């Protein structure tokens, strides 16, 4: 079920209403039923997969807790990852084996299986791995009740695109559902977060997608200015898409009395690439930090090993996003940028002259934002030929940036959206809008809600799936 859909609005409304009215174990069942409807809405067939992931995590944690052996833990993790490997990477793997066979002139040319990627499998798997590892590390008691694990794994606001919640953070909150929600649900704040998310996704990201899709669909035929607009446009699109999703997830969970991890801390305001990764997709960064980077030694190793660790982790982050070398390239670029940042910090520490703080921050922001924006090019591209074409067009644009040769239909509307995004991001970065909204007077709250409803007229007619749903 798409978050920005009438079905979801109704599901959330009914679930919240029931959760507010009821008390006791029934609330758990209500939210679990809503989660099953939410996931099964697209294709009920994949409910078996959800069930498999739930049972695997439930049993795995109990087994790991009982035997406390590294081998058992490894087996359970392999079990969790095998589903991900099959659904997400089997086709990619076989395509590469096939390409290698053809290149080597071998007679064995395997067929590439066509496997439909179930929504949210990467998120579910990583949450499952984190759960059993936390139990193994004695950071979390294993949950005996299958229903409780089922709700933890399938809690609908975070089911298909995160945040990747840890057991120790989410489980106690889900248990508290049974004690009733009345008097502890901040309705205004939760609703405002949903409104903010819908605005970012529906009005800004989905409209921006129109330009981006058209230009990336025909880079060769697009003018340099249009390619530049699409490159910046995608930077805005992916952020508004994922941040919008996260806001709806957080707002929905809040209406059920659950506080999820905030995945975004205004990453485009970051003044370094390291800071960017502390602000972008926070739950994924933390997952890789806790379960891969630190076990590999993190930064407490020699400089070459530290740089190697960063590269490996970011390679894995890229691969996690999608079974395509373009995602791997995106991860490798970020790994390189993080490595360069480490080196720069070492070098800059030895430079005796200091730049004024403001200028340093502004320069840092400028470099970081553009590095991140350029790195999105392979991420958005379907193949490796496209980034080369895009970069060539961007180069042409930098040679004559004042040329206004654009064929984008309705360009002023999109420029208006960019302006709204910048203003919104700056205000949202300085003031906590959702908390402020809850403190407004009744007429002001009503006017803001009304204005938000009117703004939905700016969204496209047909719903557009969230980008991160495919990961």
């Amino acid at each position, binding site marked *: 079920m*798409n978050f920005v*859909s*009438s*079905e979801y609005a*109704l599901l959330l409304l009914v679930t919240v209403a029931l959760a507010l009215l009821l008390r006791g174990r029934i609330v758990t069942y209500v939210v679990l039923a809503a989660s099953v409807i939410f996931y099964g809405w697209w294709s009920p067939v994949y409910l078996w997969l959800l069930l498999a992931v739930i049972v695997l995590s439930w049993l795995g944690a109990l087994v790991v807790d009982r035997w406390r052996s590294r081998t058992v833990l490894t087996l359970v993790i392999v079990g969790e990852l095998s589903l991900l490997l099959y659904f997400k990477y089997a086709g990619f793997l076989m395509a590469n084996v096939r390409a290698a066979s053809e290149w080597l002139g071998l007679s064995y040319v395997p067929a590439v299986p066509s496997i439909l990627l179930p929504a949210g499998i990467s998120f579910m798997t990583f949450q499952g791995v984190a759960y059993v590892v936390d139990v193994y590390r004695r950071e979390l008691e294993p949950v005996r009740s299958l229903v409780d694990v089922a709700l933890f794994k399938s809690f609908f606001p975070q089911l298909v695109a995160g945040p990747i919640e840890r057991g120790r953070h989410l489980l106690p909150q889900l248990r508290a559902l049974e004690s009733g929600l*009345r*008097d*502890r*649900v*901040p*309705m*205004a704040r939760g*609703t405002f977060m949903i409104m903010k998310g819908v605005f970012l996704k529906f009005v800004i990201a989905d*409209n921006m997608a*129109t330009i981006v899709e058209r230009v990336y669909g025909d880079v060769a035929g697009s003018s340099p200015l249009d390619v530049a607009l699409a490159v910046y446009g995608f930077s805005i699109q992916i952020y508004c898409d994922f941040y919008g999703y996260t806001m709806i997830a957080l707002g929905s969970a809040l209406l059920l009395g659950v506080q999820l991890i905030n995945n975004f801390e205004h990453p485009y305001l970051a003044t370094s690439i390291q800071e960017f990764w502390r602000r972008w997709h926070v739950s994924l960064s933390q997952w890789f930090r806790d379960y891969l980077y630190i076990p590999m030694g993190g930064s407490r190793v020699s400089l070459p090993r530290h740089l190697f660790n960063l590269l490996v982790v970011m390679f894995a982050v890229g691969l996690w996003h999608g079974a395509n070398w373009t995602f791997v390239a995106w991860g490798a670029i970020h790994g390189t940028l993080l490595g360069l940042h480490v080196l720069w910090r070492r070098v800059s520490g030895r430079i005796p002259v200091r730049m004024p703080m403001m200028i340093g921050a502004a320069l840092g922001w400028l470099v970081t934002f553009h590095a991140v924006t350029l790195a999105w090019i392979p991420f958005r591209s379907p193949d490796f030929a496209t980034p080369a074409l895009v970069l060539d067009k961007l180069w042409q644009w930098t040679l004559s940036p004042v040329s206004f040769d654009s064929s984008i*239909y*309705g*360009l*002023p*509307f*999109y420029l*208006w959206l960019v302006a709204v995004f910048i203003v919104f991001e700056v205000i949202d970065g300085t003031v906590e809008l959702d908390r402020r909204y*809850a403190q407004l007077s*009744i*007429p*002001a*709250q*009503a*006017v*803001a*809600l*009304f204005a938000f*409803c*009117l703004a*939905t*007229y*700016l*969204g*496209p*007619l*047909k*719903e557009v799936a969230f980008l991160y749903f495919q990961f």
Partner: protein
Amino acid sequence: MSESANNRRFLIAAALGFAAFFAVDSYLFAAEGFRRAMGDATQEGQVLRKVERAAGQAAIADVIFFGSSYVRSGISGEPFLERGLVPFNFGVSGGAQVYDYFALQRIAPELTRRQRKPRLVVEFKTDALLKSKDNLWSEYPQYIAIVRSRTVMLRNAPVLWRHFSDYGMTSQFISGVMIPSSIYRSHAVPVLGADATHDGDFYGPEDFSGYSALYTVATPSMVLSGREEPAPLADFYPAKLELLRRFLALAVSTGCPITLYQSPTMMMGRDSRVLDSLFEALSVEFPGVEIIRTSDYHLEIADFDEGRHPNIRGADKISRQLIPLLGLQSSEPLEARMRAGFDAAVLPPFEQWTLTGAKAANGELAFEAQDRLGSVIAQSPPIDVRANRDWVLEFATPEIRGNVMVAVSWQDAETGQAREVTSVSQLQSPPWDGSARFFLRSRPKSGTVVVRVLDYGPLAGREPVSGRLKLLRLWSNR
């Protein structure tokens, strides 16, 4: 302040905010607010404009056609009129079973009242009915344009839900019930970014009967291949079939004779048996329903346009062949019926016009390229019309080289500003080599209009026009 007190405050605010929004939604949808601001060149505008004149035309028509653009642009009015018959083309772009059913509901009371029943011809289209991965016949804009009441939406909710579910559009369906004006979301970019207005017509103006002409010519490479054998019933969209059945049941209840019409495709008649199993099933349920297959009439490749629809030559050809196939005969005096359905403006003969480079002869205007200096060829004296009514000026070019533009202008009674709408003949490439008819619809806010004939060549940097032009009629639905 406690959380429960905060929540109480918010619930009051939410009730106020949503109430205000529902009021806006209600106003926009009920008052057709966007149409007023943006004109008729939207899917909704096309449907609403057609529905406005539907009851009047249904009251006098000998035959009423329902369906998609293959009907709207595929069955022309003139051949019927030549044989003393009044057609009403109720087809709209993208219309199929959803639109047809609700369109029939709009005129069913009128049809039931009528003594002499018109024949109802409903399109029976393979593309729309057969299940396919990228089927384009969701009919959402058509549905929301013709069903203007939540009661009707809810009364038909089960079948509509199934229908829109086949197209992955249940969310839009629910939005349509909750906030019907959400359909106007599709206009954000044109309104705010493209500086575009929706004045004019959605996919071309229509003639008196509701027909909209196409003028390009298809090439042999555009001939299609596809399924030729009868499709089993399981291959059809169940909800579309249910709506077709509902249409037939309602049509039967009005007492009108019914024909299922397989509209033309560029399979050139080879697909004529595809719908046979469905027709057999329907003819058991609705005895007396007739069928016209694509093999029952004959078209050539040159009768289609570049979009694979019948062009004006093809539409004229189909209309001429349909008249005997439908068994239509004129039994009542045409003039009296037309007077009942239309207001006709008196068009002054060309001899009374101001001619600057043209000659009037035999009711026609003849013009040569070398006869004039400016672009105006002829200008009529003021012509009396009824203000704020939809008027259609139909003109023909029996012979022409180049492009002629016809303009209808008036002085807006409310604003005092001069307004003008125009239509250009034979703008297509390659140039149309035969005679053709053109239609120009306007809604003058004035009691008089002036018609001008202009040479479009100099205006568009092309060769000057020469040829002959004939004004057919300036009509308005009563």
